[in-house]
């Protein structure tokens, strides 16, 4: 496996550094991060879903919101409590924060002599502090670190954004009907040393005595921030309550993917009739790959103005469902939707393991919920297993 190039400086972090804060302390955390110069991003309600957006106050967060997810469907719902992180996940992971859908990677202007003079691109956003990253998405971020930074020519802008970012991961308490992190070994609780490095792990605890947030440090930066935030030293009750939150979430996973020998099963199933059946429903619309937190395929496009005096090169998200994705001299290799779906699923759950040492799926369930046709990767895998 290619090692994750973002080194986790968690050495020297001790459980004694962990703190427990109340709602005021959560506000302090946001303030401390902002005070340290971070652009603080967190979950916010947007257009019937949850997205990452700028957060200044606790009230900007999705207080009292939960979600219902099923194949081809996502609905926000009012919870009967004031949980802030009581939804499972939103329309997108942190992918667009670190790896935007399009990015100018080169610009050139023609000078008086007609020569093209390159311009360096400036990245003036960030550094970001992202609050509320789910364990599944943290694992996906780890995959992006491996893929985008571990290769010979790293994605330069991604590297800058990632190195500077402060990540507050959050434990899930209420998984959605589409979640299956437990079967992928990626959740529901962020664990130091697994997935991308993070700075703090937060578990929200809400009971008759009120709101508590257990904040566990996972990096030296995290320890420093916690010192500034204050709060009381986390005690045994906080820890055991957090453990029960996780235990209950584990028991309420919406889905299960049997990963035993899955790679070989996929390799042996290239001619399965399942691919024809799924292609009847698949729209080749690309939503699954656009919402998948691990999908990393890109295209490079050149554009120039009318006079040909100014030109730029853009890195844009691409997808194996795009007819042009497999375009070689003379035509596309994967002309049919069947070939594209087979490529996607076989790579995601099979050849990814050969390539990067892990599955390409972290079990977030987004490709299931956000597929207009409601195609369910766990169900398609189960069909292959039944056939075998």
């Amino acid at each position, binding site marked *: 496996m290619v090692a994750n190039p973002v080194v986790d400086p968690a050495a020297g972090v001790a459980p004694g550094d962990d703190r427990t804060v109340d709602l005021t302390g959560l506000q302090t955390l946001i303030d401390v991060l902002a005070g340290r110069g971070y652009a603080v991003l967190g979950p916010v309600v947007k257009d019937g*879903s949850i997205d990452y957006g700028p957060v200044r106050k606790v009230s900007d967060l999705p207080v009292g919101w939960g979600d219902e997810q099923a194949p081809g469907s996502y609905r926000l719902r009012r919870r009967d409590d004031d949980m802030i992180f009581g939804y499972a996940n939103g329309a997108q992971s942190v992918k*667009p924060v670190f790896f935007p859908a399009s990015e100018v990677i080169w610009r050139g202007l023609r000078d008086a002599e007609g020569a093209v003079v390159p311009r360096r691109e400036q990245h003036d956003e960030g550094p970001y502090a992202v609050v509320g990253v789910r364990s599944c998405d943290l694992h996906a971020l780890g995959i992006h670190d491996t893929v985008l930074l571990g290769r010979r020519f790293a994605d330069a802008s991604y590297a800058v954004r990632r190195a500077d970012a402060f990540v507050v991961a959050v434990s899930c308490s209420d998984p959605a009907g589409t979640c299956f992190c437990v079967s992928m070994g990626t959740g529901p609780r962020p664990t130091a040393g697994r997935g991308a490095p993070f700075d703090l792990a937060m578990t929200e605890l809400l009971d008759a005595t009120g709101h508590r947030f257990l904040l566990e440090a996972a990096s030296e930066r995290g320890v420093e921030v916690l010192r500034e935030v204050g709060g009381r030293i986390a005690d045994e009750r906080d820890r055991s309550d957090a453990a029960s939150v996780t235990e209950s979430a584990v028991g309420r996973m919406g889905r299960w993917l049997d990963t035993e020998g899955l790679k070989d099963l996929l390799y042996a199933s290239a001619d399965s009739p399942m691919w024809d059946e799924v292609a009847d*429903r698949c729209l080749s619309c690309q939503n699954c790959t656009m919402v998948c937190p691990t999908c990393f395929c890109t295209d490079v496009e050149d554009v120039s103005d009318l006079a040909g005096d100014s030109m730029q090169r853009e890195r844009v998200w691409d997808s194996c469902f*795009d007819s042009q994705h497999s375009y070689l001299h003379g035509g596309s290799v994967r002309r049919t939707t069947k070939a594209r779906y087979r490529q996607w699923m076989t790579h995601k759950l099979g050849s990814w393991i050969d390539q990067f040492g892990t599955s390409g799926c972290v079990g977030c369930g987004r490709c299931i919920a*956000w597929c207009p046709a409601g195609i369910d990767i766990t169900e398609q895998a189960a069909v292959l297993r039944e056939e075998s």
Partner: protein
Amino acid sequence: MAAVTKSRRPTLAVWKFASCDGCQLQLLNCEDELIPLSGAVEIAYFPEATRAVVEGPYDVSLVEGSITTPEDLERIQQVREMSGRLITIGACATTGGIQALRNFADVAEFRSVVYAHPEYVSTLERSTGIAEHVRVDFELRGCPIDKNQLLEVLAAELQGRRPRVATHSVCVECKARGNVCVTIAHGTPCLGPVTQAGCGALCPTFARGCYGCFGPQDSPNTASMAQVLSRHGMDEPQIVRLYRTFHAAAEAFREESERHEAPAGTPRRTS
């Protein structure tokens, strides 16, 4: 086209057939880019914008509108002969436009109902796109076209490169823009998955479903799409209407609309 030197600007002509002029207006809407455009090309024939006429032939012709009359049939041949490169603009020129709804009906019948003197109206049975009649070098889709795509196509023509015009679905633009899907999160039917990108996912950005202005994407699964539409509350006549809006005569949309037409046994015409 050959590399262009500044000494002789290529000539550009803009032609109109059966259409609403909306696509030509997109060219006029280019505002800030009009001056660089007139520096890059000589606008030689563009009645919508100027009376000045430079004699053909023209290096590049933009053709708006569909073929609906016997005269159109002849004129499009002349335009083709006079043009180095011929680029069609808009839904009408691509697949016959809204007026291709006639392809599903009896033209003689509604002509007699609508006009006092139907004998004066000379029209074809079907409204068709330009490529059904002459060779077309590039088809720019949209109802209307997107002005940035138009500028990109013209820039690509001038520089002899491939235009950056995607043929994938509207969903790709929708997601790139960071929209929340209106179908998944609100239950609103949306034609985006089978429609070609180009508008920047305009309607979903304003919480509406896509109407299909840019016609079918390159891999349109219109049958599965119809099932999704129906699951989100559209009945058969609504599905027919959605597929028969701006690109009624596009092969993929036409076929699917016919599958959802009135029950078997009811007489109907096909195009």
